């Protein structure tokens, strides 16, 4: 049985990347994820990897573009304002179809905001952020162990679909310490082979060109239709979610990430008081589990979506429910983390209204 270690979320995600065979990191310090950047600066030289602190997040995302275009596993991490700076580069990376992994340890916003945990970058991650018709695969862990597992998955999905993948964490997850079991080190010789398209020097073959651009609109549309075909495939095959006690539930709580951890406690507290409530936790925020949520909500009296924002994922919940029932929302923002007690109060109001 592999040993468990107590490790901080930020460092755990860094180690997970190294175990996944990532030997390249470009990034810029920003609270609350600087420990990840610092960890990579210590760890990568130990495994003969390369760490470079870039001059900005703008530079970091473009270094990611460069490294990814050689078909090499590469990652960056940042927090909300830095992730905003990366949007241009991400749009280019999505258009050029370059495998790469991004970690956003979300903090209160907008603007400079603060350094406490939030979930107010949901729209940015799932609905665009950058310009153009593209999608990031978005994975939302709710524990440090799950963050480790999803960072590994992120690299695999990025390579499988030639797409940037976002691990959407938050300041709580980044800073807390939990026991973690790390996977074995990936044998670097088994990493996916991208030599059919990557820029590795054209010796012995036709040169490879990588761009996100075509001046002929018919061609650009064709490129876009190609991306869309890929996105439909991802939607069909990569949805992930988890449920807790939904079979006999009359009410459903919906939340992701750190918020879902808290909602787990709310479920226990409510059940103790005789309220039959369950939890639906999306793990992939894109592709969002629309069908799965719709069937989980079948026959329930009411839905309460709780986020550390002013209401972003709730729009996708409403889309999934498609007007069949009322979807309530409760949220705190600016880095404020809701307590289980206050969520339970909201739930009770809804229960009262519905009985």
């Amino acid at each position, binding site marked *: 049985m592999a040993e468990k270690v107590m490790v901080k979320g930020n460092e755990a995600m860094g180690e997970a990347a190294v175990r996944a065979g990532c030997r*390249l990191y470009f990034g810029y310090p920003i609270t609350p994820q600087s420990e990840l950047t610092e960890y990579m600066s210590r760890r990568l030289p130990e495994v003969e990897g390369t760490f470079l602190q870039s001059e900005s997040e703008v530079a970091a995302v473009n270094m990611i573009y460069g*490294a990814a*275009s050689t078909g090499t596993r590469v990652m960056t991490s940042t927090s909300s304002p830095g992730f905003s700076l990366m949007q241009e580069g991400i749009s280019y990376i999505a258009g050029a179809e370059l495998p790469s992994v991004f970690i956003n340890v979300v903090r209160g916003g907008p603007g400079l905001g603060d350094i406490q945990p939030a979930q107010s970058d949901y729209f940015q991650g799932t609905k665009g952020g950058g310009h153009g018709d593209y999608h990031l695969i978005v994975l939302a862990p709710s524990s440090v162990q799950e963050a480790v597992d999803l960072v590994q998955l992120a690299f695999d999905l990025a390579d499988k679909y030639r797409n940037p993948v976002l691990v959407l964490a938050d300041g709580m997850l980044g800073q807390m310490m939990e026991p973690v079991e790390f996977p074995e080190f990936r044998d670097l010789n088994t990493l996916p082979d991208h030599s059919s398209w990557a*820029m*590795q020097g*054209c010796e012995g073959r036709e040169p*490879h060109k*990588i761009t*996100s651009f075509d001046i002929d609109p018919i061609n650009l549309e064709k490129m876009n239709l190609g991306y869309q075909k890929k996105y439909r495939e991802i939607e069909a095959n990569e949805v992930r979610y988890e449920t807790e006690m939904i079979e006999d539930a009359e009410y459903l709580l919906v939340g992701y990430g750190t918020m879902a951890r808290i909602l787990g406690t709310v479920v226990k507290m409510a059940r103790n008081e005789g309220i039959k409530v369950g939890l639906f936790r999306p793990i992939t925020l894109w592709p969002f589990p629309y069908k799965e949520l719709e069937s989980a909500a079948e026959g329930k009296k009411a839905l309460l979506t709780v986020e550390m924002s002013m209401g972003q994922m709730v729009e996708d919940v409403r889309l999934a429910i498609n007007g069949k029932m009322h979807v309530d929302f409760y949220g705190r923002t600016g880095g404020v983390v809701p307590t289980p007690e206050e969520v339970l109060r909201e739930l009770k109001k809804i229960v009262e209204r519905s009985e």
Partner: protein
Amino acid sequence: MAAKAIFKKPQSLSDKEFTYCPGCHHGIVHRLVAEVIDELGIQGKTLMVAPVGCSVFAYTFFDVDGTVAAHGRAPAVATGMKRAMPDKVVFTYQGDGDLAAIGTAEIIHAANRGEKITTIFINNAIYGMTGGQMAPTTLLGMKTTTSPYGREVDREGYPIHVSEVLKELSGVAYLERVAVSSPAEVRKAKQAIKKAFMTQIKGLGFSLVEVLSTCPTNWGLSPIEAINWLNENMKKEYPLGVFVDKVGELK
């Protein structure tokens, strides 16, 4: 009688016709870079990063692995490539808006880190592709579509001297400003470009060649008038010469 071609298209230049205006110096410099790549035998291991600007299509004019970076970001993209594949030869090709406006941070830091990449910098004192707006390198008094009254110190500030700024950074191993206004200058420019690539191959640090170039279309001059204007005005503002040379004599 058999005839041999003594001057012909270099192998690492593709067959695609250049999309540049008549008399634009981009085409001359592209050919020189390709000649150097051929002579150094590095076509099979060269990676190029094209900019946003008139030379956005540059990646189609060279038969090497190529990409286009976001505006100004080529030095960062090149850094990512070189750090991922240190044995490849990586070069960026950038104009004055790409390098000296939006890309100022990226070029300074790549140079400062001594990234083992080579930058070919085309300085024609104007924005070409977007129709003739003012560039950071536009001369005082020069009229452009966004400085219609002529550039003035109080309003738009002074032109920026990229080579003079970069020479202060210790990571720079080769830095020269050239022009291609005459066959003699074309020969010298080629030598500079060759030394710049040699700098990278020898692992000495960052190299850049700044090429004073004409933009006949947006200057409103014929190709030959444009060369005369460059000789009379741009060389005074941007003197030619070697600023940093850690390479020494070329074999």
